[in-house]
């Protein structure tokens, strides 16, 4: 019973790992290991053999650098109308403030002054307050407000420049760079090959540091937020390198530093614009963790 059991187990194990398209010669080796009784033994030997021989996929780490929005987004039409309605309701339900009471008082006093039977002696001895009418106060405040010029919220020329960090201040942007992979020039999130002796997060930090612009970012944790397995086209596949696995790490931009030289292949893109630059399979994996909220 043991031998046929073992063979069945090894076959299912082989089918499970077929997705990684191991070369056929390996399966024979598994079958030989699988002759022993329990399936646990076969799996153990499988993992031992795996660490002994390196995985055929190269490892790389990429950084998903996000510039968070700097200004609040514009209200959509329904949001605007709801905002107005709430403002109206709150005004109706409120009490009169001190300023409004003063306005009403002043208006009444003016009416009494303009009436024919006005006697200034009847007035209370608050003559000092008459010098500054509340309306004048309001006008002076209005003037002060007009004299302050805030920075413009939307600047069309900067918005069109894809490589500037200051574009589209109301949305969150992703950094995308052009890199040569194999013999192709592709638009990707900045990535770097993994080296022995470092964690994947350190690889991602290296990828960020390798960019021509000095960008300071805070990495959010040691765990990757997504993975993309890139399989080399069939003719290029060898025994040891079937492709690369790229792990993405999320970081938030804290300081953009001096502006980038115009020729550097760096773009800041919104989530909706990514479609025009990234490959479809890559985009499918990447847009799952890019939050556009």
């Amino acid at each position, binding site marked *: 019973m043991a031998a046929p059991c073992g063979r069945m187990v090894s076959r299912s194990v082989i089918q499970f790992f077929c997705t990684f398209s191991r070369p056929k010669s390996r399966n024979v080796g598994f079958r030989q290991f699988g002759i022993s009784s329990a399936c646990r033994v076969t799996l153990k030997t499988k993992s031992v053999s795996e*660490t002994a021989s390196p*995985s055929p*996929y190269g*490892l790389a780490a990429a950084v998903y650098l996000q510039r*968070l*929005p*700097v*200004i*609040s*987004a514009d209200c959509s039409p*329904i*949001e605007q*109308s*709801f905002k107005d*309605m709430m403002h109206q*309701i709150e005004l*109706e339900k*409120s*009490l*009169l403030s001190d300023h409004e*009471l003063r306005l009403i008082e002043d208006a009444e006093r003016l009416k009494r002054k303009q009436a024919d039977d006005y006697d200034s002696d009847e007035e209370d001895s608050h003559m000092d307050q008459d010098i500054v009418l509340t309306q004048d106060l309001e006008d002076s405040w209005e003037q002060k407000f007009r004299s302050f010029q*805030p*920075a*413009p*919220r939307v600047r069309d020329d900067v918005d069109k420049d894809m490589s500037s960090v*200051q574009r589209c*201040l*109301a949305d969150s942007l992703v950094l995308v760079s052009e890199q040569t992979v194999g013999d192709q020039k592709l638009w990707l999130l900045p990535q770097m090959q993994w080296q022995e002796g470092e*964690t*994947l*997060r350190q690889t991602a930090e290296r990828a960020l540091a390798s960019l021509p612009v000095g960008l300071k970012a*805070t*990495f*959010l*944790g*040691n*765990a*990757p*937020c*997504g*993975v993309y*397995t890139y399989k080399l086209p069939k003719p290029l596949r060898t025994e040891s390198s079937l492709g690369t*696995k790229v*792990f*993405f790490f999320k970081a*938030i931009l*804290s300081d953009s530093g001096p502006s980038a030289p115009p020729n550097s292949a760096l773009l800041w893109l919104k989530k909706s614009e990514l479609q025009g630059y990234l490959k479809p399979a890559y985009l499918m*994996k990447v847009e*799952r*963790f890019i*939050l*556009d*909220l």
Partner: protein
Amino acid sequence: MSLAFSRCICRVLPQHIVQRSSLAEGHAARTALYVPAMTLRTTAPLRAEPKKKKKVDPKREQMMRERLKKKLKKLEKVPPELIPIEDFITPTKCLDEERTRPISAISFEESERRALLLKEWSRYKQKQHMAEMKAVESALESQREALEELKITSEELYQAALKPDFTLLPFTHEGPAYTPPKSKYEAPDGKYTDTTRVYTQ
């Protein structure tokens, strides 16, 4: 009168009681050898030796002081006054009748419009919430898959990825304002007097 009484009783009493009590009463004992047993009140130290003001009295005084202190503490043990929450107390300014705004009647169309807008708004907010939840779930799913892949690829990298990052917190980020920051803007000095009331318990 009591002396005559004691004289007649002491003839009845045995001699040793009279002698023992002779020293007890102080000057009363000296005046009469006949000390009545009924008025006899002796305490052990008084009986044994003449009154001393050494160790005994300080102890007693200490005990008296402690008792007084305990009584004082009990009196002082008033529960601390609760700090009033100023937000929950309606200031008397708001209850002034003069301050009520003149209510303008809302037309029927206006109230209808408001009701319909509220319904629209709830639908819009629900869609927004569902979209947010979906986005967050997909991000979490993507992370879970990434960690699984990493585990299959390399155990030690997986363990390194699971370690908590202590350099991340405390993390601060300035949230979005209405207008972007102006470069080279000098803000005017703002002086204000802090009028918050501080309570001590």
